[in-house]
């Protein structure tokens, strides 16, 4: 036996388990699924080739369209929202303050909770009567309504007539501390080293935020009274109405429930971003500071480009994940109400294991795979210009 052959055989010997695994558990099923999608599976018999019939049926299956729509809607809302929230969370967790270790643990903990527990726990949280979420919402909205009610007549806002009461003018008072802290007047009354100025600025920010809350509340009551009434105590998982009601293709309340629940597990992503944030070379920030960049500028021009590969990676994994969402809708809503939380992975499961339509389910899986590949390619293509790979 020559040394070379022996060496090669050793190499193949080491990867042999994976070679077999790859063949039996990935390659074979992958191509088999492709073949099955062109077949009919009568019970107790082998696959029978029927051409593209399964795909033709898919084209006109309203439930399949619905599941695809639901999944797309979920992906379109949950992925950008998730990336944005995880990103901001990571930036906050990266700030140099005390207690970060505790915060990080708190945000990471939900990731450890098993899927089924998450589903059952959030079913309980979404309970319209005794659930935690509606309890908090009722409480928060009682406060918010009270605050808006101080300045506006909530009952008459929806009608639009005489909705502006003189009391709303009081909100303009919020501008007073702002005028005293910034602007030409402030320059006259404060000396440069004055300590009153930052205090006034803080008061101004708080006052403006509070006034804005009242105004936003009033605007919502004016233009979306139905939604405002509902959001005080939604029926969550049982409610198939869209929110916001006026927007076409808006997710149903039940779907929003699943989206909110999926946001609960975002800590994992935030910790990944955080790890990358800490790897960004300090020199880059120093260089930016010399160029006069502020915090925002540094975040946009240094931080985000430096961690963009991780963002892309996360987006791609989230796309694949979104098309596999199964446990949450299966346990929490069984796809209801009116199939508005029937995700496409659930459809595959139902067709294959409940109705025993293996061929049809395979066709759905094949379509699913093509969609995932297409979306991934789009993500890579779009990101080409924006994702920065460091030389390392």
């Amino acid at each position, binding site marked *: 036996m020559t040394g070379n052959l022996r060496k090669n055989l*050793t190499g193949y010997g080491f990867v042999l*388990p994976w070679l077999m695994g790859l063949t039996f558990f990935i390659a074979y*099923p992958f191509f088999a699924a492709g073949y099955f999608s062109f077949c009919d599976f009568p019970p107790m018999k082998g696959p029978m080739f029927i051409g593209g019939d399964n795909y033709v049926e898919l084209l006109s299956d309203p439930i399949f369209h619905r599941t695809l729509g639901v999944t797309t809607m979920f992906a379109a809302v949950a992925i950008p929202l998730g990336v944005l929230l995880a990103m901001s969370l990571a930036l906050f967790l990266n*700030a140099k303050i005390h207690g970060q270790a505790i915060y990080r643990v708190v945000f990471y903990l939900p990731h450890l909770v098993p899927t089924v527990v998450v589903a*059952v726990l959030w079913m*309980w949280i979404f309970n319209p*009567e*005794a659930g935690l979420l509606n309890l908090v919402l009722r409480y928060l909205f009682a406060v918010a309504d009270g605050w808006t009610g101080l300045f506006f007549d909530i009952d008459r806002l929806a009608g639009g007539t005489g909705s502006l009461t003189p009391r709303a003018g009081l909100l303009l008072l919020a501008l007073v501390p702002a005028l005293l802290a910034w602007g030409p007047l402030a320059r006259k009354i404060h000396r440069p080293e004055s300590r009153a100025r930052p205090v006034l600025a803080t008061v101004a920010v708080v006052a403006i935020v509070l006034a804005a809350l009242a105004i936003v509340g009033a605007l919502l009551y004016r233009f979306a009274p139905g939604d405002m009434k509902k959001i005080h105590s939604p029926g969550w998982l049982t409610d198939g109405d869209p929110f916001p009601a006026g927007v076409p293709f808006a997710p149903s309340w039940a779907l929003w429930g699943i989206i909110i629940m999926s946001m609960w597990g975002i800590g994992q992503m935030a910790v*990944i971003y955080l790890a990358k944030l800490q790897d960004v070379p300090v020199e880059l920030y120093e260089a930016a500071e010399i160029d006069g960049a502020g915090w925002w500028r540094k975040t946009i021009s240094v931080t985000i480009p430096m961690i963009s590969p991780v963002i892309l990676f996360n987006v791609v994994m989230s796309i694949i994940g979104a098309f596999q969402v199964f446990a949450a809708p299966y*346990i929490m809503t069984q796809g209801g109400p009116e199939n508005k939380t029937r995700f496409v992975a659930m459809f595959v499961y139902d067709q294959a294991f409940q109705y025993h339509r293996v061929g049809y389910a395979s066709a759905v899986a094949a379509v699913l795979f093509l969609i995932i590949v297409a979306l991934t390619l789009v993500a890579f293509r779009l990101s080409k210009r924006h994702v920065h790979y460091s030389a390392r």
Partner: protein
Amino acid sequence: MSSVGEKKTPWHLRTVVHLVLIVGGLFFILPLVWMIATSLKPLDQTLMRPESLTTAFFATGYHATINGTEYPVTRDRPVELGKGESLYIVTPAKAFAAGELTLPFGPDMWKKSVSFTDEERRQMDANVTPTMHVLADENNRYDPAAGTLSLRSGRVVRADLVRRVTAAEAPPGETLYVVREWRPEDTDTKGVSSPFVKVERAWDILPDSRIRTGPKVIPNNYPVALRRVHFTRSLGNTLLLCLMTVCGTVIASVVVAYGFAYLEFPGRKALFALTLATIMVPFVVTMIPVYLMYRSLGWVGTFKPLWVATWFGNAFFIFLLRQFFLGLPKDLLDAARIDGCTELEILWNVIVPLSRPVIAMVALFTFLGTWKDFLGPLIYLNHEKQFTLSLSLQAFASEHGGTPWHLLMAASTVFSLPLIILFFFAMKTFMRSVATTGLKG
């Protein structure tokens, strides 16, 4: 919030960061607190809308004095009485079937008030003993003059008046409640092994002011919940599966990764690229043919489909381990080769000891994945005896349409606890693993 630079972040920015993190943290931590809080509540307090945020998280211990004895009680339901209306608590002179009554001791009540055990319900369904007090209202008509009780079935029995309840009993602004004696064992929604329990419980109609809050009696939620999800059996199944998958994944992936990292053979690069590509293949796509394959082997309904595949390695972990191996000093390897070690010996004596952290990470990931897995067991396990914790919990939840929240939350807490404890013990490995998985790309 500037994260870099020597100068300290100004106090107002630090305050803002703290505020944002605390408010955000509430969203992440409150559900877990709520889970534990619910698991410590008696059943009836999970059915009604909590009066405030405090009572939502902390169970209230209600106490009332009924016939001179103080009992821990449940507030079953509010009673609304108009002016001049009154209710009678009466004792019927003759036994009658339970179906003839209505609230609070009629069938409606028995279906709704799940804190009675089956045994108790059956007992009550059989007949209502003459000594039992009955609430006479608009359904069970009581004629005080004649001393007769007209039941829903149309039957009329003689009944003695125990007490007359009028709206005047409630001081202004207060509500009258049906209160009932409560015992810690009243947590079960299904009589699993409850011995014969005496049906009669002290009960009365009392205004708010006579229902005192006092020391809480902790309900036996945990033992009952664990019994209902067959905890020991499910835990055993889950741990067995975890053991098999962790061993399989670690051994196979380490060996294969070593092959990819250090051994030369034709097609290595192409095979590795293919391996990376398979990470993108979703489980949903391969699920069906794999299932059919296992079915033709006769493995459906056994644990085998859930662990056998792990003994062939896992693409992602192979990638992870290979990257780590490539970072190890090559000199060690060469030295060992010169010493005449075989490749397996090198792997075992040189590489593995150096790679403990990354191997721990792979083991941890696999353990978590198996512990949390739902779809796999759902597809392949069909006998209750084989159910993992995930399946048992889901079965328990769907069996009831999710009503006994106190028990579900108790089971959920126990189910999540091992992972959280594990996390605190292996925090370093966890955080490193998170950082490393993001490294890809």
